[in-house]
């Protein structure tokens, strides 16, 4: 059943069968009287047979607004839009029904005429009784193409045409041999049975097709909804977790500060400070992601020193890396590489943070650069647990979390931002597991300037 939406504030209908936005009074062949006044919590319902509105008190239906496509410019009004069920189908349907029906009967007359013509051609070679088969074929065609009633009409017209044109005496409805009455009856009954069987099969297969389509549609909606919910859950979780710690620590200091030991107070302060830092990074990542997706990130590509790039990333992560050893290996005489210093620093910072998060504090992180004729290769390698092979292709996807010990608490954004930035440079990024344990992330950047850089 189709559902149409009527927005009382604007008088706009929305849904299948309407143009994008159809104003009240513009729908052809549909009574589009404005609904009567009603209050919040009531829904105006259109009664098609009597073409009148009634107002019914209803529970708010959740999910209605979600079904409205987001590209509807009035989606801020979506909450006050109501489904007007059957509004179109009933009223517009009445007109259509007569047209379609008339077409069907005209079709059956044409089929009978065609069958009659064929019979006329082969009349010298066939006895009249066998011509019945030609008419039966017309009935089957009518049943497949036109539906039940036109098929029965075809059977009926066939009997008349057969009698009139071919049963002696010809060109009258008189019947010389009474046996033909049995032929007529048998033909008509068989015709009706064939018609109803064929149309039933046709309707079943159409219904099955429709159901399959609807199931597919529902499945896609479900998948999208699940994804959206997962994203929202992930974002709100990542935003709230640090806030919980910050608020907890600060309220403890504010309310219980006097009773806490100096060490405890210090620990609470450090927790709040670290978590604020984490929250700041997450918000930064979220902004980067939004800008990448909106295409709003404009690269400022300049010939840059790779060692300087690494230095910037190391200095930005210094406080978090603490005592961890980070080794840097660079080929001597490395040329300047065209890149956006700020964004590529962000890429390395995210990779370092990631390695720092997953690898044990004792293990070292290795940064290495090498350059060929076309590409600069930058790798960040850790001695963490690595990533299961089956998950490797997905770790650069947005909000992808691999199953890791709870302490990690990643945002699932860092690596996808890396990919977005590197790809905006015309480069590539991939990850593989290291021999001996750990993960290597490899970045390839073009050595020559790309066509569309600033």
């Amino acid at each position, binding site marked *: 059943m189709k559902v149409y939406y009527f927005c009382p504030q604007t008088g706009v209908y929305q849904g299948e069968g309407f143009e994008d936005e159809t104003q009240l009074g513009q729908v052809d062949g549909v009574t589009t009287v404005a609904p009567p006044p009603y209050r919040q919590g009531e829904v105006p319902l259109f009664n098609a047979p009597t073409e009148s509105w009634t107002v019914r008190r209803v529970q708010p239906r959740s999910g209605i607004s979600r079904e409205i496509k987001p590209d509807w410019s009035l989606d801020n009004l979506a909450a006050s839009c109501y489904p007007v069920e059957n509004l179109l189908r009933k009223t517009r349907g009445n007109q259509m029904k007569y047209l379609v029906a008339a077409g069907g009967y005209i079709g059956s007359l044409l089929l009978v005429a065609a069958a009659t013509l064929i019979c006329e051609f082969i009349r010298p070679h066939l006895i009249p009784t066998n011509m019945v088969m030609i008419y039966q074929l017309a009935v089957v065609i009518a049943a497949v193409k036109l539906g039940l009633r036109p098929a029965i009409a075809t059977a009926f017209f066939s009997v008349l045409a057969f009698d009139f044109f071919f049963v002696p005496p010809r060109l009258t409805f008189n019947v010389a041999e009474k046996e033909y009455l049995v032929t007529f009856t048998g033909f008509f009954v068989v015709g009706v049975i064939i018609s109803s069987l064929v149309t039933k099969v046709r309707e079943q297969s159409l219904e099955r097709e429709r159901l399959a389509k609807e199931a597919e549609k529902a499945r896609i909606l479900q998948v999208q909804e699940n994804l959206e919910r997962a994203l929202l859950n992930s974002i709100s979780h990542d935003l709230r977790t640090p806030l919980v710690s910050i608020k907890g620590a600060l309220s403890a200091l504010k309310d219980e500060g006097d009773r806490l030991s100096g060490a405890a107070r210090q620990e609470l302060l450090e927790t709040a400070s670290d978590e604020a830092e984490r929250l*700041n990074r997450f918000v*930064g990542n979220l902004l980067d992601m939004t800008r990448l997706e909106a295409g709003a990130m404009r690269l400022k590509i300049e010939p840059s020193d790779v*060692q300087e790039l690494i*230095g910037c990333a*190391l*200095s930005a992560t210094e406080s978090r890396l603490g005592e961890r050893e980070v080794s840097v290996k660079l080929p001597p005489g490395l040329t*300047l590489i065209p890149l956006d210093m*700020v964004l590529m620093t962000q890429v390395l910072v995210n990779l370092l943070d990631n390695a720092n998060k997953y690898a044990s504090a004792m293990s070292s992180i290795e940064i290495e650069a090498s350059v060929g004729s076309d590409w600069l290769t930058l790798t960040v390698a850790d001695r963490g647990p690595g990533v299961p092979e089956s998950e490797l292709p997905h770790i650069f996807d947005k909000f992808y979390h691999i199953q890791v010990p709870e302490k990690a608490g990643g945002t699932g954004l860092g690596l996808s931002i890396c990919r977005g930035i590197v790809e905006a440079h015309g480069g590539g990024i991939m990850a593989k597991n290291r021999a001996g344990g750990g993960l290597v992330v490899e970045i390839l950047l073009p050595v020559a300037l790309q066509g569309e850089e600033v």
Partner: protein
Amino acid sequence: MKASPDANGQHRILVIDDEAAIRRFLHSALSSEEFSLHEAESGHNGLSAAASLRPDVILLDLGLPDLDGIEVIRRIREWSEVPIIVLSVREREDDKVAALDAGADDYLTKPFGVGELLARIRASLRRSIVQSSEPVFISADLRVDLNLRRVTLSGDEIQLTPTEYDLLRLLIVHADKVLTHKLILKQIWGGAHQEQPQVLRVTISNLRKKIERDPSRPRHITTEPGVGYRLRQSA
């Protein structure tokens, strides 16, 4: 203009920021025997407060509702050399460069820690008190005698090319201050090279190889990505 403490021995700090929460936080974090804090919540109020109060340092938020922060800097620079520290968010590198080129002395990326802010304020005050640099610059293992043009690292003499030395000297004169790429290019190579930042990158890289223990972790000349360079002076 000289930055001298007022009768109470306090330096006057003017905060121009429309966010009440940030003014409140700065007020409680900075007010002390050393500093007295004054607030303005808009660009116009900030300009008149700068004129009437004659602060020793101005902390300026770039995102003001009534007046572009860059415009505030320009108008103050028409009549005063008071140190201006810009408070800006991370994504706006171009704004930082524009603010520095308009005459701001330094910037801090929000959110920032109070320790960092205090260090920047003190560095700005020091610069405005000491008009001309000391003839000898010392920071950790680095020692530069500007009279003798002599550079040593842990006592060992370092040979610099004339361009490297000029660049180092420029950074020393503005120690602890961010110098934009544009400003450095103009000062060292003249107007013609302003569009060729490579030459600056290469010179910085070479200079770091000579004066940094680990050029991948520079301690003296640090990069402010997308903005410029800063020479750090540590005790």
